[in-house]
C-alpha cells in the first residue's frame, strides 16, 4: 500500500502568555500513518484535540514536538520543518483542508471560488468552468447564486460552496473537519458520495464527523485520541 501521510510523535501544548502563562497540554506522542484510499476518522470526546491534530497535519498549527511527512509526488515533505513556500506548494497540489466554514473573499464569485484550485493546478479555464458547474449543481446550489459572491449566502450554502471547491478536484490527502455539520440529509448524502469517490480515486481521508451515521458510512478505520491525552 502507498503511504500518503505519516505522523510521528506529535505533541501539542498551548501556552497562553496573557492568561497567567497557563500551559494547556492537548495530546502527546501521537503516531500513525495513512495509506492511499483509507478514511481514518479521529475519535474521542470534545477537547481531546481532534481539530488541533487536523490543523497540525495541514501545517496550520505548529506542534510542540513531532513530524508530519506527507506525500508530495514521489517525495515526502515534513510539513513541520518545511519552508513556508514548500508548505504552500504542498497545499496547492497534495493536501487539502475542508472545514464547515468558508473564508469569504470580498467580491469573488462563487463559480470563481470553485474554479480557483483547479486553475492553480493548471486545469484549463473551460474545463474548470465545466467541472465547477457540475459540482455546484450536484450540491443543489441554485444556479442564480453561481455568479454572486457568497458573503450574503446562508451558512449551509457557504458550506456547500466550500465543499464544491474542495471536492471538484480532490487533493491526494484530504483533511475534513465536520464537513457535513449544517447540511440537510440530501446534501449530506452527496458529501458522503463525494468522499467515497475521492477514496476510489486514491485520496487518503482523515476526518472528524460528529454524526454517527455519516461516520459509519465513511470510515475505514478509527483513531482514538483518548489514549494520547496528555497529563494536565
Amino acid at each position, binding site marked *: 500500500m502507498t*503511504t500518503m501521510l*505519516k505522523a510521528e510523535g506529535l505533541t501539542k501544548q498551548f*501556552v*497562553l*502568555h*496573557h492568561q497567567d502563562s497557563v500551559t494547556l497540554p492537548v495530546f502527546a506522542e501521537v503516531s500513525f500513518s495513512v495509506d492511499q484510499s483509507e478514511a481514518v476518522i479521529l475519535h474521542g470526546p470534545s477537547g481531546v484535540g481532534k481539530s488541533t491534530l487536523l*490543523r497540525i497535519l495541514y*501545517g*496550520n*498549527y*505548529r506542534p510542540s514536538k513531532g513530524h508530519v*511527512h506527507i506525500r*508530495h*509526488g*514521489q*517525495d*515526502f*515533505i*515534513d510539513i513541520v*520543518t*518545511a519552508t*513556508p*513556500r*514548500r*508548505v*504552500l*506548494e504542498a497545499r496547492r497540489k497534495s493536501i487539502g483542508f475542508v472545514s464547515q466554514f468558508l473564508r469569504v*473573499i*470580498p*467580491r*469573488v464569485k462563487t463559480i470563481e471560488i470553485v474554479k480557483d484550485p483547479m486553475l492553480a493546478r493548471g486545469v484549463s479555464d473551460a474545463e474548470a468552468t465545466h467541472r465547477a458547474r457540475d459540482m455546484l449543481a450536484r450540491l443543489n446550489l441554485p444556479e442564480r447564486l453561481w455568479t454572486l459572491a457568497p458573503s450574503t449566502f446562508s451558512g449551509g450554502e457557504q458550506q456547500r460552496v466550500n465543499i464544491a471547491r474542495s471536492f471538484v478536484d480532490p487533493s491526494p490527502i484530504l483533511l475534513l473537519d465536520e464537513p457535513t455539520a449544517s447540511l440537510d440529509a440530501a446534501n449530506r448524502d452527496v458529501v458522503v458520495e463525494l468522499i467515497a469517490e475521492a477514496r476510489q480515486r486514491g485520496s487518503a481521508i482523515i476526518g472528524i464527523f460528529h454524526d454517527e451515521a455519516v461516520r459509519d458510512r465513511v470510515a475505514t478505520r478509527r483513531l482514538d485520541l483518548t489514549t494520547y491525552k496528555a497529563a494536565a
Partner: protein
Amino acid sequence: MRESSTPVIADPDPILIAKNVTKHYGERIGCEDVSFSLWPGEVLGIVGESGSGKSTLLRCLAGIDRPTSGEILFRHEGEPISLFNIPEPTRRKLMRTEWGIVHQNPRDGLRMDVSAGGNVGERLMDRGDRHYGKIRRSAMEWLTRVEINEDRIDDRPRQFSGGMQQRLQIARVLVPEPRLVFMDEPTGGLDVSVQARLLDLLRVLVRDLGIAAVIVTHDLAVARLLTDRLMVMKGGYVVEEGLTDQVLDDPHHAYTQLLTSAVLAA
C-alpha cells in the same frame, strides 16, 4: 521514507535577500537585525503596531533609507546586487524600472498636477516607449484594469476620490511591470467598502502578474487576505514569523498573541 524534507521542485533564486538589516536613529532603534529571503511570486506581510519598525524596515528594503548595518541584495539579471553598494543613479534606475512603491498616501506616489493618463503614461516613457497612440492605449488599459472609467483619463488626480487616487497610484506603480512591489499600508485611510475593492484588486493583480511583494500593514485581516508569509515586529525586532495562517491561528510569541486576541470579529 526519507527522514528529511527533500526539494521536490527546483528552487528559483530569491529576488530579495535581507541580511541582518539594522537601522538606528542615533540611540533609538528603528529596526534591528532583520534577515529574510523573498522569492518571485511571494507576498510577505510585515505587521506590528506604530513604532514597531515596520515602515523603517520597508524604507531600507525599498532603497529609500540606507541601513546603519547589514545588507540588502536584489537579484538583477541573474546576479545579486547589493543595494547600497552601487552608485546612487544605478539604484534610482532600478527603483524606477525593477520595483515599485505604493505609498499609504496616494499624493506621495502620484503627480497631482498631471492627468491620470499622464501619471500612467509617464512610466511607460521611462521604460522607453515613445509612440503616443500606443502609450495612450496602454494607459487606458491600465485605468480599466484598476476600475477607473476611461472617460476620466484626462482628469487630474485631485479630482478623484481617495479610493480612486489609490487605484491610480497602483496602476502607475504596476505599469512598468516591476518584479517587486513594496506597499506601505495600501488600504490605510480608506473606507471599509473601498478597502474591500482595493484588496480584491491587489490580490488578483499580484496573482496574475506573479510579482513578489512586501506589504506593511497593521491590519491583520489585510495580512490574511494578501500575504503568504508574515513577520511580526515589536520594538524594531522581528518577534515571530512563518506562514500567515500559522502565525495568526497559532501565535506563539506573547506579543503576537496579544495582537491576534485584540481583533474584534466583525
